[in-house]
Each structure stands twice: as structure tokens, then as C-alpha cells.
């Protein structure tokens, strides 16, 4: 295996750890996630990404989901329950993949990803996390990236995956379109975050569907891009709500003068989530559209329209939340710990925007290789 390929799990681990640690750094000490959660999650993520065996990798993925569920429980029982269900799915994959039931493993793994990414209509748990615990949601995005990584590595190199790809692509594109349309009528910041997450959930699922046609690296880039953009948005939303409470749209509120840095960071992560040029979202979106075209031109058009609608709803949200007559607010702008997180995530969003090859090439070299021989219907193996 070339050196490039060996860097893929390390790089993915780095993104996952960043998303795992970022909310902890940004949080005030009193509300901080217990340290053991972070340590266990980091170890389980490393185990997920570096496991040579599919069953072990999915077992580790189940552990991460359960630890997230424990973190989520005090904020959102619905979110915690969805995470437990996804853990059960991961355990199911571990069992079925061990018994050479690759089709069942593929389907279970796909549903687990849809649950974790918040793809409509599997979005109820993630929507609850977006509403009640955006920082836990950011952390669980880290392990969603790891889950996608092992899905691409272990269960996507299969003829059944290719056969099911058109269905998954169309389903993902339709889910993204519906969620983006939904985002246009949201009346509060949490609703915006929910529907943005659901739109990206559809994109991730569609990318996963198209991945089986040797677009593994593209699917990983789409997931990393969604993770960074949504993670950044989640942390900024949590920071804003700590200062001003729950934000409903109503009249424009003029917060940009009180929180200029928060507004800049929100705008940047919002721009990344709607594929603005210069951000990783732009390249990921472009690559996604080209891979989708192979499976479904209609799905591609739906995805383009979804992206356009999401961009409009992001501007609507920004204008309601930050613009308007200057308000006199006593709360401070981003404090240093939050600024560090915003700058680190923003830097990564921009660096990957200009150099997407940093993720793509190692991931392509690593994920293109099927880890174990998989039997094919004609009795051969590949």
C-alpha cells in the first residue's frame, strides 16, 4: 500500500478529533463535556478508522454512538434514542459482515449513516440534537465521518452496492431537495440549523450512493465538508444562544454590531455549507454533482436546486439573526476560546477549499482498495 494511502485514516482521524474537541474548547468550563467522554470517543474513533477488520470497526462505531447517546441524554432523549438505534445498526453490520451477509450489512450501514447524518425522514433524532444540543451534534458529526469512512472501506466494494446505487442516489437527492425547500419557511435559528443539517444529510446519502462507482474519495470529501461547515455553524449557534437565548426570526435584530466576530464566523461557515467558492463546500459540491450525474441526471438537477434554495435560506437566516438596527447588547463578542475554535475550523474550511487534494488523493488511494476479497455472484472474487 503506498504511503499516500496510509495517511487517509490519519487525516480522517485528525478531522474527527478536531470536531470532537472544538465544542469542548468553545464551551465554558461549567458546561463542559466530561473529560472521559472525550477520551473514550477519541480512542473509539481511532479504533474505528484503523481497524483492519470490518466487524471490529463497526463495533467501535457502535461504541462511539453509545458514548454520544450518554452525552446527549441530559439534553435530548430523542437524540440519544436515535444514537442508540444507530449503535444497534452498527452492531448489526458487525454481525452481518462477519457472516458474509454483505447486502444486509450494506443496507444496515446505509441506514445508520442516514440516521447519523440526519437525512429526511430519518432525521428526527438529529433534528432534536440540533434543537437542544448543537455542541453534542457537532461531536456526533465527527463520528459520522468515521462511520462513512468505514462504510466506504468495508461494505461499499460490492456488486449489490452498485445495483442499489441509483435508488440511494435518487433518495438522497430527493431528501436534500425536500429539506432545502423546508429550510425556506423556517422562522427561527434552530429550525434553520435543523433543515440545513437535513439537506446535508441528503447530500451525504446521495454521495454514498454514487460512491460505489469508484467515487469513494468524493463521498468522503462531501462528508468532511458537511462536518466542518455544520460543526462550525453548530458551535456558533450555541455561542449565540448562550448570549441571547433562543433566536426567533421576527424583525431584523442588529446583532452584527454587538457580535461582529460571531457574525463573520457564522457567515463563513454558512458560506461553506452552501458551497461558496474558496470553501471546501464548493469543491465537494462540484465533485458531488459530477458523480451524481453518472447515476441520475434528475437527481443532479434536484441537488443543484437544493443547493440554491439552501443558499437563499442561509442569507435569510443571517439577515434576520444579525442584520438590522443596532441593538444594545451587554454580552461580549466571541471570547478567545471561541475565537480559537472559529479560526481553526475556518482555516481548515479554506485550506481544503483551495487544496482539496489533501483529502481526496490519500482517500482515493486507500478506499479504492477492497480490504478483503469479496465473492461475486459468478463465483469469482475481487
Amino acid at each position, binding site marked *: 500500500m503506498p504511503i499516500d494511502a496510509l495517511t487517509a485514516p490519519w487525516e480522517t482521524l485528525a478531522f474527527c478529533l478536531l470536531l470532537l474537541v472544538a465544542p469542548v474548547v468553545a464551551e465554558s468550563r461549567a458546561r463542559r463535556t466530561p473529560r472521559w467522554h472525550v477520551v473514550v470517543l477519541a480512542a473509539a474513533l481511532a479504533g474505528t478508522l484503523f481497524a483492519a477488520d470490518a466487524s471490529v470497526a463497526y463495533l467501535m462505531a457502535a461504541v462511539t454512538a453509545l458514548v454520544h447517546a450518554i452525552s446527549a441524554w441530559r439534553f*435530548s*432523549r430523542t437524540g440519544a*434514542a436515535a444514537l442508540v438505534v444507530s449503535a444497534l445498526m452498527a452492531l448489526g453490520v458487525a454481525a452481518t459482515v462477519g457472516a458474509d451477509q454483505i447486502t444486509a450489512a450494506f443496507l444496515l450501514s446505509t441506514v445508520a449513516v442516514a440516521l447519523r447524518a440526519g437525512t429526511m425522514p430519518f432525521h*428526527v433524532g438529529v*433534528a*432534536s440534537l440540533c*434543537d*437542544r444540543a448543537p455542541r453534542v451534534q457537532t461531536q456526533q458529526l465527527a463520528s459520522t465521518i468515521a462511520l462513512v469512512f468505514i462504510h466506504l472501506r468495508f461494505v461499499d466494494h460490492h456488486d449489490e452496492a452498485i445495483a442499489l446505487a441509483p435508488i440511494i442516489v435518487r433518495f438522497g437527492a430527493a431528501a436534500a431537495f425536500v429539506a432545502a*425547500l*423546508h429550510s*425556506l*419557511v423556517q422562522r427561527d435559528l*434552530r429550525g434553520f440549523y435543523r433543515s440545513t443539517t437535513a439537506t446535508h444529510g441528503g447530500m451525504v446519502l446521495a454521495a454514498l450512493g454514487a460512491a460505489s462507482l*469508484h*467515487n469513494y*474519495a*468524493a463521498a468522503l470529501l462531501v462528508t468532511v465538508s458537511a462536518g466542518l461547515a455544520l460543526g462550525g455553524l453548530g458551535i456558533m449557534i450555541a455561542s449565540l444562544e448562550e448570549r441571547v437565548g433562543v433566536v426567533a426570526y421576527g*424583525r*431584523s435584530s*442588529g446583532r*452584527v*454590531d454587538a457580535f*461582529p*466576530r460571531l457574525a*463573520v464566523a457564522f457567515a463563513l461557515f454558512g*458560506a461553506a455549507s452552501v458551497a*461558496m*467558492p*474558496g470553501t471546501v463546500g*464548493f*469543491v465537494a459540491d*462540484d*465533485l458531488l*454533482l*459530477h*458523480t451524481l*450525474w453518472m447515476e441520475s441526471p434528475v437527481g*443532479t*438537477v434536484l441537488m*443543484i*436546486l437544493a*443547493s*440554491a*434554495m439552501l*443558499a*437563499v435560506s442561509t*442569507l435569510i437566516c443571517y*439577515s434576520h439573526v444579525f*442584520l*438590522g*438596527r*443596532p441593538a444594545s447588547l451587554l454580552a461580549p463578542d466571541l471570547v478567545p476560546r471561541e*475565537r480559537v475554535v*472559529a*479560526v481553526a475550523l*475556518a482555516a481548515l474550511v*479554506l485550506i481544503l477549499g483551495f487544496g*482539496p*487534494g489533501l483529502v481526496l488523493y490519500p482517500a*482515493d488511494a486507500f478506499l479504492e482498495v477492497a480490504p478483503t476479497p469479496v465473492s461475486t455472484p459468478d463465483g469469482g472474487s475481487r
Partner: protein
Amino acid sequence: MPDMLHLMLALAIVAPLLSVPAIGLRVLLADHFPSERFAFRIAEAGLAVSTLASIVVFGYFAGVFGAPVRGEVEFGRWLHIHDYEIPLVLLVDRVSVTISLFAVILTTIVARFSRTYLHKEPGFVRFFVLLAFFATGTQLVALAGALELFFAGWEILGISSAMFIGFFHERDEPVRSSVRAFGTYRFADAGLLIATVVTFELLGSARFSALGRAGTLPAAEATLIAMLFLLSAMGKSAQLPFSGWLPRAMEGPTPSSALFYGAVSIHAGLFLLLRVWPVLEVSTPARVAGVVVGLSTAFYAASVVRVHTDAKGALAHATLAQVGLILVEICLGWITLALVHLVAHALLRLGQYLRAPSLIHDSHRLGHVHHHPSWLERRAPRLAVRLYAASLHRLRLDDRIDVAFSPALALARAIDRLDRRLRSALSLDGPA
């Protein structure tokens, strides 16, 4: 010296862009907000370097530094995976070097003008960040050698335009106008994005040079691509039925209105059509559609400008009428005329927009201008009255677009209700 050419082309695009993180990082990391002087100097330095680089590139094109340079200049690949690539390729030709130099010089002039005009405005720093961002977008649009790069620049123009329209965000109206303009842009941009994907799939590359093979495509496919490009150009250049956002865009500061809706951005759609001319050339239906749209817009805008009472709004519609005529010229294949018309028109409008605040003084000085009945008023007074009323309401374009989109919004609300029910049925939590 090809290396020098590469450097200059890169600087023409990247130099203004570098001032964005330079100012942005200072905003994020420093304790104090940057001063006006700092923001202006950084933005002006980026623009000055870009201007010099554009002049040198023009020199290469004109043959000042040896044999004239023409064609694609390769910078490698933005990404390349299997059979898909986004090439980093710029184009040096008559259209690109003219527009690049022209746009950066106008942006630099407007930047200098704005330093005084916006002195002590609360959004001074934001204005210069956006101006640098916009300059990057125009250079990318002008010099891009492939549709993906062009699209990146195109999007930058769109977002910076929306931000400028909503610049005075303390009032509700500019913010609403900004969202409306951005919505129109994104809807029309979908056409460009679909066209880019389809072009790549059908021609094997999204380079502008590959569009020369458009003649080999079946007529229906060539027409589909040409129509998508035309749709995108119509949105960006505010052609009917997308003209409603342009008068609303006058909510922005005068210098940005001058640069965007007088000089550069409003002509970007026309520039796109000049760039993709080989596709347009082989599609007669698209060219006919372009002529119809251009003439309709020119007629509509000429009618509205006669009844408009505010200076910037009248200028916006006067601009629109000329842009409609340039669209007609392009679709008729009069490319050189269209390019000359575009440059001359942009220069005239820039001056007019920048002088718009002085028009009040001028009108006081000149006194009342008597109304002389027009030919239509003399021949068909009833029709003239109807036309007057329709022009006053701008054909209710915005209302009609709202009506066209209302089923989609109704569907979105239905989805919202369904989503609430689903989440409430499956929820294990109490109220948030």
C-alpha cells in the same frame, strides 16, 4: 518569459483576495476593530498589484514583451480524480484581457472615490473587504479558461453583490432587496451549474476551448446547453423576467451601485454569452430567444425610465435598456460591436452613477424641464396612459414572480407541518 506571465496572471486574481483574510483575520483575532486607514490601505494595495499585473498581462497579449501570447495558460489542476478534473487554466485573448484590465481599473477608481464618500460610515471596513472580494470575482470571471473557474468567480460576484445591496442593513428594505437579488441570482446560477455539468459530460471537458466542439453535438443537446447559459445570463444581467431585482439593488451605497449595476456586474451575463459563443452560435432557438428577451427588456426598461422619479432608479432602467440591446447584438452575432458597446456603456454609466448624488443640485440649477407630448401620446392617448400606468408599476414583475413561486412555498409549508407532526409523534422529550 512564461513564468512571469504565470505570476502576473496569478497576481491579477489573488492579490485582491489576499486582502480579504488580511483584514478578516484582524477582525477575528485582534482586540480592536481595524481602522479605516488600515482597511483602505490593504484593499488598495491588493487592487494596485492586481492592476499592475493586468497591465503586464495586456502587454504580453499585445506583444510588448516579445511574441504576442494568446490562448490557454495552464496552472495545473485544482483537483483531478479518475476522469474528472477542475483545471486551473486561464485564458489570454482579446475579450479576457480587455475585460480584466477594464474591470480592475474601474474597481480601483471606485475604491479611491469610496474612501472619501464612505468616510466615517459604520460599514467602511466591510465595504473594502467586499470590494476586494468582488475584484477577485471579476478577475476570475474575466480570465477563467474553464467553466468551473468561471462559476467560482460568478458566485463571488453574486454574493458580494447581495452583500452590497444589504450594506445599510439598519433599514429593513435593503436587507429584503438583498435577499431578493440573491435569490434571483442563485436561481439563475443553477442554469450555469447544470450547463457546466452537462458540458463536461457531453464534451469531455468544461474548458472554454472545448466549446469549439459544440457543433458536433446533436441540435437538442446544444440548444439545451445554450438555453441554460442564456438563463444564467438573464439572471445576472437582470433581463426579463428577472428585471425586478435591479431597481431594488439601488439600496446599496452609490459607489457599489456604480461599479456593479453601472459598470461591471450587470454586464457579466453578456460576458458569459461572449465566452460561450460557440455553443450559442450553433443553437438558433437560443439566439432567437436571446433576441426576444433583449428587445423585450429594452422596451420595458425604456418605458419604465420615462416615469421613474428617482435618479438611481431611472439610471438602473436606462442601463437595463442598453444591456438588452447588447444582448440582441450578441445573439445576432455582432460580437465586436457588442464588446465595444459593452465597454463604452459601462464607462458612461459608471460616471453617471457616481454623479447621481449631484443630480439634485443639477436639476435645481437647470430648472424645470417642460414635458412635450410624445408621438404615442399624440397618436394613441389611451394606449399611452395604459403604458404609463404599467410602467409605473414596473409590470408588477415582482408580484408575478411571487405568484409563480407561491406553489413551491405552499409545498414547503406543507412539508413543515408534516415534519412537525413527525417530530412530535416520535419525540421522547418535553417542550424545548
